[in-house]
């Protein structure tokens, strides 16, 4: 009897069908299977070490498409043994309360992330959740506390942590290879500059609209908000300042932890649509100042070059997906010393998650890192909304002496939902 079986098996022991014996497979459930979720679903169905048990989505067409995809793949196994095929649900509670699912992939709109993750974890599931971690700071705290309280493995979909270039850039910054790092520059796409004024209509039969709206303030169905556009509507997301921003901010914080330590001053401006359904900023310029004097300039791509850039008094490194540049260029060929800080190495975001399910370690994008990155984008957004300088205290996880700003950090939920 070994300590390592049966959660994760190497490809070498997979059977003729490229699949591990049923008893050894890690069983996954998937909440939110359109868009990004369909990618996770397909990846898991194609992975012989896994068994995809269920797909959940308020859209009938989406969940049934995925169900069919899984059942086509498992055609030979259905009905043999206990496996009855992949199930499909509109209500995630039916999925998370099953006791034959080990891990849950979450790719719902952001205002659902916290509930989906917390429910899955309090039912003993490990969680891979798409970014951003949550809609509000309070929800991020709820997720973090649930991970710790239940000893779950939680991987946030900030997959740049499994990209060597981002890790290396952070290591250069952390280990003094750039000299004293004084400035960090972060720029991401701004997202949609506006959405039309959408006319309500009856929800089509394909969607379980109650399960779509969930904890958000209720409003009548429109085609506009029940689509990709939720990214730009404040009830569901804070815009790409958060949803895209969290990727690069996470990478920036990895190399400049001062921005999630002690007190941080934040000041910024942003442009918001003046009408229509969208009400999230699409262009912003935010300055952050850490206690150690480091500054961060966080903007949309219109403000400065896209990516994450650490600038020190002896050099800089600029990293984007698929590319890294540095000055002096020789930094890129540098190998770290044993005494240097070596950051968590992961080469596959999914793989790291599965590995950690086996070992019960924290994955590379753990819940603390996820909270810091998500909250940094949230407080940046709040600073642009209140339009004044705010100071965030990371120890208390609150703004100092600003009731209005603090009110943004938590939103009540519609019954019966709560966290």
């Amino acid at each position, binding site marked *: 009897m070994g*300590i390592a079986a049966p959660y994760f098996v190497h490809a070498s022991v997979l059977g003729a069908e490229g699949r591990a014996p049923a008893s050894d497979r890690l069983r996954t459930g998937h909440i939110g299977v359109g868009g990004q979720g369909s990618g996770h679903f397909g990846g898991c169905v194609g992975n012989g070490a896994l068994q995809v048990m269920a797909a959940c989505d308020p859209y009938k067409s989406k969940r049934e498409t995925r169900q069919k995809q899984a059942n086509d793949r498992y055609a030979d196994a259905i009905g043999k043994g206990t496996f009855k095929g992949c199930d499909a649900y509109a209500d995630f*509670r039916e999925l998370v309360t099953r006791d034959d699912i080990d891990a849950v992939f979450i790719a719902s709109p952001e205002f659902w992330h916290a509930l989906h993750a917390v429910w899955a974890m309090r039912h003993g599931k490990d969680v891979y959740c798409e970014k951003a971690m949550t809609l509000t700071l309070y929800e991020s705290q709820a997720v973090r506390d649930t991970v710790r309280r239940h000893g779950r493995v939680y991987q946030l979909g900030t997959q740049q942590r499994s990209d060597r270039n981002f890790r290396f850039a952070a290591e250069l910054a952390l280990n003094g290879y750039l000299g004293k790092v004084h400035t960090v520059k972060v720029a991401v796409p701004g997202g949609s500059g*506006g959405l039309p004024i959408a006319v309500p209509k009856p929800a089509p039969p394909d969607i379980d609209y109650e399960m779509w709206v969930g904890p958000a303030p209720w409003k009548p169905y429109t085609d506009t908000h029940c689509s990709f556009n939720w990214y730009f509507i404040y009830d569901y997301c804070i815009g790409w300042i958060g949803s895209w921003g969290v990727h690069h901010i996470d990478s920036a914080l990895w190399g400049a932890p001062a921005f999630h330590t002690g007190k941080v001053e934040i000041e910024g401006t942003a442009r918001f649509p003046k*009408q229509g359904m969208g009400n999230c900023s699409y262009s912003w310029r935010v300055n952050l100042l850490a206690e150690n004097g480091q500054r961060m300039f966080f903007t949309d791509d*219109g403000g400065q070059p896209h990516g994450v850039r650490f600038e020190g008094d002896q050099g800089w490194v600029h990293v984007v997906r698929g590319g890294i540049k540095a000055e002096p260029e020789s930094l890129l060929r540098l*190998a770290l010393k044993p005494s240097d800080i070596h950051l968590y190495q992961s080469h596959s975001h999914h793989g790291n998650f599965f590995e950690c399910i086996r070992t019960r370690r924290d994955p590379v994008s753990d819940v603390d890192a996820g909270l810091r990155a998500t909250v940094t984008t949230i407080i940046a957004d709040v600073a642009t909304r209140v339009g004044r300088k705010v100071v965030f205290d990371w120890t208390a996880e609150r703004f100092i002496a600003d009731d209005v700003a603090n009110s943004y950090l938590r939103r009540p939920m519609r019954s019966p939902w709560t966290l």
Partner: protein
Amino acid sequence: MNLPRPFRPLGPLGPFLLACALLTRAAEPPLTPDQAFEQVKAYDYGQPDRALHFLELEIVRAATDAPKKAQMAERLGAILADAKATHAARVWCCQQLLLVGTEAQVPLLVKTLDDEKTAEIARFTLQGIRGEASLAALRTCLAKFQGMPLVGAVNSLGIRRDAKSVVAIAKLLTNSDPLLAAAAAEALGKIGNAEAATALAKAELPARQMGALHDAQLRCAQLLAAGGDAANAEKLYEQVWASSRPVAWRLAGLAGLTKVSKEKATPLVLDALGSEDPLIQASAVQLTKQLPGEKVTAALVQRLEKLDASGQALLLDVLAERGDRSAAPGVAKRMEAKDDAVRAAAVRAMGNLGDSALIHRLGALAATERGLVQQAARAALAALSSKDADDRLLAAAAEGEAAIRVELLRAIAARRIASATPMLLKSAADPDDAIRRAAFDALAVVGAPECYPKLIGLLAAAQGDTQAPEKAVLAVGARLANPADRAAPLIAALKTASAQAKASLLRVLGATGGADALQAVRACLSDADAAVRDAALRSLASWPDAAPAGDLLKLARDSESPVHRVLALRGYLHLASEEKDEAARLKMLEQIRPIATTTESKKLLLGALGEAPDAGALQVAASFLDDAEVRAEAAAAALRIGQAIVGSDRQAVVAAMTMLVEKCKDEAVVKQAEALHAQALKPPRAGGAGSVPDYDKKRSDGMKADVAKRAPKGFQVVAYLNCGPDATDGEKGKPTLRVGDAQAYRWAGADIRYGTIFYTGDVVTFEASSLNPKKAYQLGFSWWDCDHDTRAQSVWAATAKGEKNTKLVDKTKLPSGQKGEKPAEKVVPIPQELTTTGGVRITFRNEAQPNCVVSEVWLLESEAEGPKGEAGAPGPQKANPDAKKVLIVTGVDSAHNWKATMRPLADLLEKDPRLACRIVEDPNFLASDEINNYDVVVIHFQNPKPLEKGVEGGKNLLKFVEGGKGVVIVHFGCGALREWPDFVKVAGRVWDPKMRAHDPRGPFKVNITDVKHPITEGMTTFDTNDELYTCLAGDSPVEVLAVATSKVDKKDYPMALVANVGKGRSFHCALGHDPKALSFPGVAELYRRGAAWAAGLPPVPPTK
């Protein structure tokens, strides 16, 4: 701490930011808070929502102090209490109250609690309002509410952690509604006092609600522990661990217990280590991290015995992480294990747990093992942390078995031992090849700059493989404080070096670069030794910059050795491919054309072109298509480059592929070229923001110069913005153009000129400032519906303050990239009543879907100071205030290049100083009242599809002419406004598509008919080269002034005719297919006199 200005100017976008701050006003007048609050009341879903957007920011920004905050909250409360307000408005008000509401709103919210429709949102808002009053109100809900609203109230009280509600909520644990029971458990968990713990400990919930109870018990325990009540916390944790819940759930109890009582947890965790269940085992292993001390370490080591291989490996990792050296003996034993994974884990762990005594053993393992164990041994050597490890390693690496020494040298590099240089220099002279190589490799990593000359000496003396020493010299050289110092010692060594050493030194010089080095390498080109000459040439070919380009070009042409010619050519092409500047690269490539005389060199050139694919390289490749010797290679190169750049430079690809299809016979090539051609024409992929390139002055100036070429006569371009990258343009104090309300974007794959845009959902604004009130201005712009076929926009101008908003261009559909249409360019006058105020705001307005886009904008200024109020000022030398104003209307033609003919036409008319022309590139302009400011309208367009305002424009034109003005119909203008049946009344004769169109283009004579008419009086037969129109129809009375005889049917056809229209005059001329046709003196004369007559002037005899 002080923050800098919130907006740090960032590169060229500084002005953009400034503009953003200045020009956030939309075209519509800004709302006042009073108006906005009024509008909110009536707001409903799907209705205009500007007021909401406005107030969402206004409210929080006004709430900087308590009185203002209270005032805002009061206004929101008033709407909430207003029975006439919509539900949507009330929900919105509640959301805002969550930000600024205070206890003052509680009484109001309590009232709304009683209304079923608003109960939920009132509860929701009360939850967020601080203070006892809101809490008390929420408590009343427990008695008042049922069902879902009651669940909400319980949730709210839980979030508020209201200890006073515990008893009431605990009663709900047994409620028959499972949702309510679960909510009660959850709330009690959050409140988390001893009373709640008691209730939770004995609660039983249905299976589906067990998750809520489980979480509540754990949360309650956590809160109790945090509050110092460890005893009750322990009890709850133990209850969870001992429960019959699934293992994954129960483990949370063990983890909690480990936090609150190490004493109680230790035996349980050690016991769990021995569990059969892998999940329990793995979790226990992780929990041991929280249980320090040798006792647990010993238990873990003991546990090692009982595990299988993969379990041992995992536990060894954990022991390494614990860092407790008491584990070392037990771990060291596993270094002998049979399983490689276990051995590797043990070896790796010893890097953390062991000391310098292990150096030799680890070195031996690294030298003799392969795979996992070797990697682990190397990692352990690098990780050993005892203080004397570096010194012991240096000593060990200096003697002993060669293979082990090699590994230890490698470890020296990995550990970056700075003091290693002297020892490494010694080893670099060792008789053993492998040791020498390892020493040089280590020197490349840690060699101090001071050893540079010595290292060069070693290189000069090196025997056999010189790769490692060369690398070391380069690496150490790169660490010199002054890069200029790198070359001198190399050049000095060159003087006395052997031929073989010279080759090495030349290679290093080739990577070093610099003027002195270049001179030294050049000198070696004529060295007596062939190998040295060869090395010198190769050195030049790999030079870091383009400095030796001239040398290589010369060698490629003149070298006696064919091999060297090829090498030089290849080197030259390599340097060209490294050149970043496109124009410079193209120049370099073009220089090689005359040298590429042999088939081989041509092939070489064509082969190398693909290394830096761009439009220039494509052009060079295509230029070889006429060369039969290398046509196939040229085609292959063109296809390869085309593939590479089709995403970035579509126009170049279209042009080259057209040539390829024309000139290549090879079917496969033609097929590929056609496919690429089609791909280049395809609309760029929608969605997915391409990145907007940075502002580039050179690039924008080029585009500015291009639009300046087409500027209307008498006007010059004073400011130009390539939307997206450019935010502002214009000299200080001179007319300046700046973007206002807009966001930058680039359609993925589209070109920079039209594919980068400014856009927003409603309006894109620009501000023109510092205008000269005495001059006239025109606005030029281009737009394109790249990724849709839906966009339509109008253009407006107002003063800088937003007054006198005037429409410049009516709602116009944009050309669709989806349908393969090209971007449209327009120039329109800006009314002088606006420009006289010094500043103008230009607004592009979205008139359809999905949003408003602009590709380019430029501002044109008249050269002369025009008469006040006159929109178009004539050219400077003709500032004739009494001139008759001629409006040339153009902008569309299904068969002619109107852009090429409009200027020549205006020029030839203005040869008569009594005529002043203005061009408007928008046929819909005919519908505007502004045409009445002119004396003659020239129809120089032909619209294939009905114009949006065709009929309206036609009627307006007819009224204009009938009222006493003039009209001139030019060539295919006879086919304009076909949607309007009365066009024949204006034109006299119109195009009949059923008739034969015209003779083939060619020379013919135009004969003046015998009619006595002021236009043709004194004119005689003249020559031209044109299309002889044979397609004019109509039966209204006209006078034909000139005819020509068709070569096809020998019949005479009218070339010029006049008609009276009401009180006005119509002159219609069929000539003028293109600039060449207009250039014949007779044609020009005829038009000039015709236009003068139409303007009511006596035609004058031919001038000059």
